[in-house]
């Protein structure tokens, strides 16, 4: 069964701390994405990847780094978390080969205090 799993599901961080959000997919998809969702802004693309070892900047990459060490795993890293990064973060995977639209994980609710 196709799946995208995010961890943690909820996170409270302190301003200036480092936060790592993890994502694992078992769909054998080449593309993976990180979005944040805020009221009034919809889903905004932070970083994406088209394969292991690749990362690309999305529309709002500032303050975020990404890492794709393998086909299955894609991490989002906040080196110095700020309260403005409080949001719900969604990871998704998709396939260029099958042109499959992104399949979303369950989301991570992050609060930066």
């Amino acid at each position, binding site marked *: 069964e196709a799946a995208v799993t995010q961890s943690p599901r909820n996170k409270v961080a302190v301003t200036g701390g480092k936060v790592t959000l993890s994502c694992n997919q078992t769909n054998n998809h080449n*593309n993976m*994405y990180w*979005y944040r969702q805020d009221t*009034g*802004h*919809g*889903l*905004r*693309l932070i970083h*994406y990847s*088209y394969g292991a070892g690749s990362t*690309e900047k*999305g*529309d709002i990459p500032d303050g975020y780094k990404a890492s794709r060490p393998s086909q299955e795993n894609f991490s989002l890293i906040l080196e110095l978390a700020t309260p403005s990064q409080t949001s719900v973060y*969604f990871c*998704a995977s*998709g396939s*260029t080969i099958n*042109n499959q*639209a*992104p*399949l*979303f*994980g*369950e*989301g991570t609710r992050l609060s930066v205090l």
Partner: protein
Amino acid sequence: QQQVRQSPQSLTVWEGETAILNCSYEDSTFDYFPWYWQFPRESPALLIAIRPVSNKKEDGRFTIFFNKREKKLSLHITDSQPGDSATYFCAASHSSSNTNKVVFGTGTRLQVLP
């Protein structure tokens, strides 16, 4: 700038009516347009998608109408049901590109009243 725009922000219809959700885009090279719906406290889920080779895609009560010249799409939900109440997102991508960036609109919140 917003590459994909949706309107209205919110829409209320009565059960049985047709809801029409609009979407427009900037980049004429986008060639794949999936629509997602999202229920409260859940993640977005794929509802229906279209490629510009067609100007219409139908799946049950859900139909996408596509106007390539005007760079506009609309999602029509016929015989709307209270269970259709959700936020709907239009998305766009370059499906033929190896770097398949997918961008979303800001969504339309649909409420269907019984």
